[in-house]
């Protein structure tokens, strides 16, 4: 236990912060500490967690991606249109279509970064504008409400009525999220490819000298994020029951903040799936709590920003450094 806290300082700090906030909210609000609310949180956080674990892989490999959320919008739209053409389809086909489209968009980022040596933030800011611009241009901003029935029908995997009459539900997005989380965890901790991604992000030159294929690393990392973005896009369309071209615009920064909060390092080589999930949950719990407390939604961003700052300071700084008196700077002669 002690050594776990030492080697997983970020995750432990996050867990502590989440517990403290939850404890506070349980006393401050009536509904926070109910199973129904907990499952609600999971249902609403699913899309962001899927995005987050995808982005985590890119961050571990030393890159960054700004374009994945609008890429997911493009995927949503393309998938909805194509499903309309063929008329029908099913979940399996939908995931195949959305996943493939996502991988293509992610691979395009990897291609720009690897082939033309453009740093990832510049490459993906460009594709962010290209993807979003193309989407708005061709759709003229028009939403699609006419989706296949299978896509808009809520899929409840588990439900249970509580004694007080509220319902506990686990829906399809949660299942998809759990699968994505486990798959990403397997990829980055249990496969040689995943460890190569870590090594590549940690010390690219060292990785090169081991003969790790650099180009393949970029394509795997951005391809994985593309896949996750595609899946998240489809799940979000299912959850919202509509495809709105700019629905996911701006989501990239929320997710990025949550992933960094979860201990991933801009610069590569560091980050865990568990920390990443905790990062997203911390943000959702805070928002949820503020909501239940009746705080104005306009104050959310500000408070969430402050929480991120506090949590990141806590997890990056050892306790001694926070106590200025304990510093052994010494006096001047």
């Amino acid at each position: 236990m002690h050594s776990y806290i030492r080697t997983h300082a970020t995750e432990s700090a996050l867990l502590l912060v989440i517990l403290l906030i939850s404890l506070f909210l349980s006393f401050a609000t009536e509904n926070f500490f109910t199973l129904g609310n907990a499952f609600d949180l999971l249902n609403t956080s699913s899309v962001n967690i899927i995005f987050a674990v995808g982005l985590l892989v890119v961050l571990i490999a030393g890159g960054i991606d700004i374009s994945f959320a609008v890429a997911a919008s493009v995927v949503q739209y393309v998938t909805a249109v194509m499903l309309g053409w063929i008329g029908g389809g099913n979940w399996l086909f939908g995931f195949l279509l959305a996943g493939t489209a996502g991988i293509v968009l992610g691979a395009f980022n990897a291609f720009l970064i690897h082939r033309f040596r453009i740093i990832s933030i510049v490459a993906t800011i460009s594709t962010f504008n290209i993807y979003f611009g193309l989407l708005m241009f061709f759709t003229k901003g028009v939403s699609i409400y006419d989706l296949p029935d299978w896509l808009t029908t809520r899929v409840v995997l588990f439900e249970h009525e509580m004694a007080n009459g509220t319902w506990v539900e686990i829906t399809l997005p949660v299942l998809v999220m759990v699968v994505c989380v486990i798959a990403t965890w397997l990829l980055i901790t249990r496969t040689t490819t995943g460890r190569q991604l870590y090594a590549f992000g940690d010390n690219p030159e060292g990785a090169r000298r081991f003969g790790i294929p650099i180009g393949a690393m970029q394509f795997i990392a951005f391809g994985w994020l593309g896949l996750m973005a595609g899946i998240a896009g489809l799940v979000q369309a299912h959850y919202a029951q509509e495809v709105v071209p700019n629905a996911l615009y701006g989501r990239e920064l929320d997710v990025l903040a949550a992933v960094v909060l979860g201990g991933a390092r801009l610069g590569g080589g560091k980050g865990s799936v568990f920390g990443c999930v905790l990062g997203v949950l911390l943000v959702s719990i805070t928002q949820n709590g503020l909501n239940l407390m009746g705080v104005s939604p306009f104050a959310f961003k500000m408070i969430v920003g402050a929480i991120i700052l506090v949590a990141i300071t806590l997890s990056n700084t050892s306790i001694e450094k926070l106590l200025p008196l304990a510093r052994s700077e010494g006096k001047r002669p």
Partner: protein
Amino acid sequence: MNNPAGAEGNDKPLLALRHINMTFGGVKALKDVSFEVRPGEVHCLAGENGSGKSTLIKIITGVYRPETGAEITYDGQAYSHMSPVTAQASGIKVIWQDLALFPEMSVAENIAFETMVGGWPRLVNYGRMRNIATDALARLGVSLDVDLPLKSYAIAQRQIVAIARALVGEARVVFMDEPTASLTQSETDYLLDIVRNLSASGVAVVFVSHRLAEVLEISSRITVLRDGALVGVYPADGMTQSRITELMTGKTFDQQVRAKPKQDRPVVLELEGLTRRGQFEDVSLTVRSGETLGITGLLGAGRTELALSLFGMLHPTAGRMALDGRPISFSSNREAIAAGIAYLSEDRLSLGLVQPQSIADNLVIASLRKIIAGGLISEDRKRSLVKHWIAELGVKIGLQDDAISTLSGGNQQRVAIAKWLATDPKLLILDAPTVGVDVGARAGIFDIVARLAETGLAIILISDEVPEVYFNADRVLHMKKGRIVGEYDPRQASLAEIEEAVYA
């Protein structure tokens, strides 16, 4: 594993390279170089920075592909080029100068990383990696917690991890790229013991270095490169450091002690009982105008911490400092610069110079005050200031606006010195001024130091290479574990005497 023919008497090379050519952006890095290693021998590959040593290793390990016509023979098999995966799998291992480790990953993963490259993606076997790592460390007689991330260990232990990594699998030839650069003497001795054991068990070891004194005694042969070409292969018996230096540079150096008596000059800096807890203790010294005071000692003796305290970047916990007879205490290096103290940092590449910026901008950065006219930087003043110092120190440059990274190590160091001279200092602290500077260019740097001293500047010269301070300082202080333990006059003491005291 224990190959009796390996340790001695086997002249058939294990690894042989012929006709190796390599060009980078129009510059010939290697010109028709040959190189061979016999089984179980300890071989030195010597050459100045930029002579092609590192390029040659990268070709041997498959990181670079040589130009066509290359012949590589390893263990009886011919190759036109290597690949990193085959090289490692067939027993060619490298301990890179920068170690090439992965700080965020565990010690076990760092040591057994080889098991995770090559072939198709597959599941990671952590148990096997842990065993491999523990075994490799046990062979070195070291025990580390292999589950901790590497970043929780200090540099010396990371070096051990790098060595352990090279021993994984069946190592047949191990290249060590500047292995002693960041080690203290006792760690170096330990490393040499490891090398002796490896060699005795039939593993060939190639030292790649431009500082060979410590490895000469255990080597059998030396290959010398200069400007990308092979100078020759020589038996190590009877070879001396100065002869190798001649071969590496193609010049002869006749070093003479420069020390002169300076007791009659006014005192510039005086320290009395200066202490910074845990780093240095009770340091008292004086430096006079026109005097060069050498401070030597092993890595970690507190030399750099002392220098940083004089420069206002660390704060002493006790003792007094006085400059020109007036007591001083600085809360920042800005105050130190204003008072007339200049500090040429140890790590020129990352701390001393801003590599992508121009020569001119690097040179004026510490003396912007002087080139301001009407609240803005005057281009004219800047140019004339830069011109003055470039001429004064004989820096060879193209244009003032060229990036500093286009200059050689020696010329970069001259610009770094010029940067501080432009602040009109009374005291100049030079911390390891020749690190990364070729042997040939070093003499030029010390000529400058001597000329500066003649103008009345007080100079503190810090170096862990005893000969450097012996030949170039007026007095030599020996620092050990944060204390000054000896003072020598180079005109009376011998180099061997000081070296023995420092390295003992």
